[in-house]
């Protein structure tokens, strides 16, 4: 039995003539307070239950592709693949994709292959870098030159050591 019900009971059974209006207001106030308290307790309870559920579902951070050494081995691209000026290839580092290329001027460059538009992986297409998803295009400097991508590709520092390629973060803040 709720407080409000009790109040009503008491009023009915007491038989004492009382101010009807004042009585009703008292009942209403009691009922309202009761609703607020139960409502508040209910919300608090829901919050208590929701927090662990939210933490359980909250996104987990991705593993750092560069690890403790601060660099990552480039797979699927060997130094020979990018020896000639103007050559390039898609490779991977950690769980991520990258593009390694040698500019016509002979400079070795690497980019994370995640398109800055909507996150597809771009493709090295001989004379440019192309995204198959919505036709985005980047030049050898990673600059977005056509289609929807809003920003240049994220550059990576690339170097050769013992016949294999490594990438490392550039000084610029890592994106995506």
């Amino acid at each position: 039995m709720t407080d409000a019900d009790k109040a009503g009971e008491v009023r009915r059974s007491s038989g004492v003539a009382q101010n009807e209006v004042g009585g009703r207001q008292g009942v209403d106030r009691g009922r309202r307070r009761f609703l607020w308290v139960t409502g508040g307790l209910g919300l608090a309870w829901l919050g208590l239950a929701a927090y662990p559920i939210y933490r359980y579902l909250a996104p987990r951070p991705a593993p750092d592709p560069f690890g403790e050494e601060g660099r990552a081995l480039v797979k699927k691209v060997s130094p020979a693949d990018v020896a000639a000026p103007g050559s390039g290839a898609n490779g991977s580092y950690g769980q991520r994709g990258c593009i390694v290329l040698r500019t016509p001027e002979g400079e070795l460059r690497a980019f994370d292959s995640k398109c800055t538009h909507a996150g597809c992986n771009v493709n090295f297409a001989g004379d440019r870098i192309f995204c198959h998803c919505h036709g985005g295009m980047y030049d050898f400097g990673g600059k977005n030159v056509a289609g929807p991508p809003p920003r240049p590709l994220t550059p990576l520092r690339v170097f050769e050591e013992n016949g294999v390629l490594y990438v490392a973060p550039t000084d610029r803040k890592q994106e995506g």
Partner: protein
Amino acid sequence: MTVDDTRRDPGIPVAAGREERSPDPRFVPIPPEAEERSSDPRFVPIPPEAEERFSDSRFVTIPPEAEEALPPADTVTGKLGRAFFRRLPVWPLVEFLSKKKVPRHRHSFWYTIGSMALFFLVVQIVTGVLLMVYYSPSQPWSSVQRIVMEIPFGGLLRSIHHWSANLMLLALFVHLFSTFFMKAYRPPRELTWLTGLALLGTTMFLGFSGYLLPWDDLSFFATRVGISELEKMPLLGTWIAGLARGGPDVTVDTIGRFYPLHVVVLPLLLLAVLSVHLFFVQVQGVSEPDSFRALPPEQKRYHRFFSEYLVNEIPIWMALAALLVALSALFPRVLAPEADPAAAAPEGIKPEWYFMVPFQMLKLFPGSLELLGMALTGLIPVLFLVVPFVDRSVPADRRGRVATRVGVAFLVYLVAMTVWGMVS
């Protein structure tokens, strides 16, 4: 217990005059009424009518109309029917449904599209449950490959699930537009319209979440693009995208989220909203096109829902089932190579046709205009949501004509963008 005790117990009334006949008052025979109220029935012979009595008197009789409509009481079905309706006072419901009728007119075809969607939903549930038998979210691609390559009829089931999903969405879109052009969203049917939109939205989410599960490169990049668009939404975008992916990128963890969504959460939601939607339709009766409503009563023709209308539906359902099997056999759903999060997206990658409009908008609104494009796409559902509150009045009203024109423009826009996206 003495007679006096029995007398004091109001539950066991004693028949007048009985006690005098017995020399020993303790052995007064219990009156028949008392017998039937005994709390322990093992010790009371059950009178013939006992099985028909319940402690709750509300359940004693069935309505006279039911008595009339049911088979005779001495047949098995008659007995079962009476026993059922005495326990469950649902006769008014049966009566309501048996009187339910559906208008017959030249637009009737458009009114069966909803039931087609319902048929595809049933197919989705059956094939979906069957696919779950072999699908494994921890080895998504190889388990789907096994379904397709090894399990007898696995490829067929998967293709039917795919085709039925597509046709269900097609049916829902047709249902949406036919309802729109018949102006059936108008009062008093706003809530039916809104629940219908919710059903379409849920079904699209089902399509999106199911698309990821095979974990081939199409599904991987489609999901990456879809969620990254969500991420650009102002305010909550980043938060929702993170929760949906389970991290900064789409991984097998994302399947861990999409799988329960696709097989439990969204279907339950869909069934809940669907029952509300159908309940509204039942209570209000199906809407009638203006031309039909204008007819004099004697010219209005109806089908009885049971079973005239339903019987007419059966050939449609059979044709749809045949269509599903034929499409699945002729154009089986291919399983693309396993997703490689590091490889380039495959050439010619495209979403399913029902996501072609946002896809095309993504291509058309580059760079800084992108948010505008997304906002324009987001406007479509909003317009559908508000239409019953804008166009409310009787036929031949100006606003009604505006709504029709906007609807036509919309339809042309959606179809044009979809076709353009598919051929480009």
